[in-house]
């Protein structure tokens, strides 16, 4: 029998971009653009990224090192305000085990020189599989990929 435990944690990642809010928003809203930066490391084998960008729409991608554990991301979009806010809830599985459920808010705000992005993730980590420290590190990597996408 699995020992049921939970760990709750929240982290925030902030970015400044020299681009207008609409360009930053499009990197999340346009499936072709999001697929360019959103996913695991380059050397992972990956499924196709799927994104139905509307409230109630789903997003998914899975992948992992060749022959290794499959990391699966499945999200549902809960709120969209064009060029300002996206709220989604996502589950992560490692193979068959659900390891976390998270609420992720992306806020996009205009600044004098471009855009401030504030990403807030509030999550529950299940049964000791993962912790918020690893998740924050992985999410920082994703934002590094977003930076590279927006700045090239």
């Amino acid at each position, binding site marked *: 029998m699995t020992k049921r435990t*939970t760990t709750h944690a929240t982290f925030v990642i902030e970015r400044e971009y020299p681009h207008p809010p609409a360009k930053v928003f499009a990197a999340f809203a346009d499936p072709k653009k999001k697929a360019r930066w959103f996913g695991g490391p380059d050397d992972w084998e990956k499924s196709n990224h799927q994104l139905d960008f509307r409230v109630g729409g789903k997003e998914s991608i899975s992948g992992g090192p060749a022959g290794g554990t499959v990391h699966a991301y499945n999200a549902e979009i809960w709120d969209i305000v064009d060029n300002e806010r996206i709220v989604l809830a996502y589950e992560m599985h490692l193979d068959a085990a659900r390891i976390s*459920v998270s609420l992720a*808010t992306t806020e996009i705000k205009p600044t004098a020189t471009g855009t401030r992005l504030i990403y807030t993730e509030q999550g529950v980590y299940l049964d000791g599989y993962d912790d918020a420290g690893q998740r924050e590190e992985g999410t920082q990597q994703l934002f590094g990929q977003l930076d590279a996408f927006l700045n090239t």
Partner: protein
Amino acid sequence: MTTTTHASFVIERHYSASPPRVYAAWSDPEAKRAWFVEGEGWDIQSFDIDFREGGSEKSVYGFRRGEEVFGEKTAFSNETVFNEIVENERIVFTYSMARNGRRFSVSLATVEIKPADKGSRLIFTEHGAFFEGGDNVTMREQGWQELLGKLDTFLAESA
């Protein structure tokens, strides 16, 4: 311009009912309606629940004094999706709240049920994103305190 405030809270309660009875109050549609939806001053317009992982729950209800309090006829709606269900032990769900069709929050809630002192200990943890024009985490926590109190009454009356 939109504003978003993030906050979390935890409520712990002891119930004299066993974990399976506490769990059933969440999983059984009639039981859930009795303590979660029904209430004095509320006019229930609809309540549907499909209690399984990936299933949803939706309730729409009016506050009978809505026009006096809010200046217009007011309907609230709660939309829920169940992310994880572990029988008798844990329920993780995401829910949004809206007033007259305008969404004002999205939350992630975890309900843990553990055997304790001839009954159960329930730990309710909510992480919320609260939007412009809605309530705030203090009101939300008060709301859940009341609901979890109604659950206590329901469990006592149905014993």
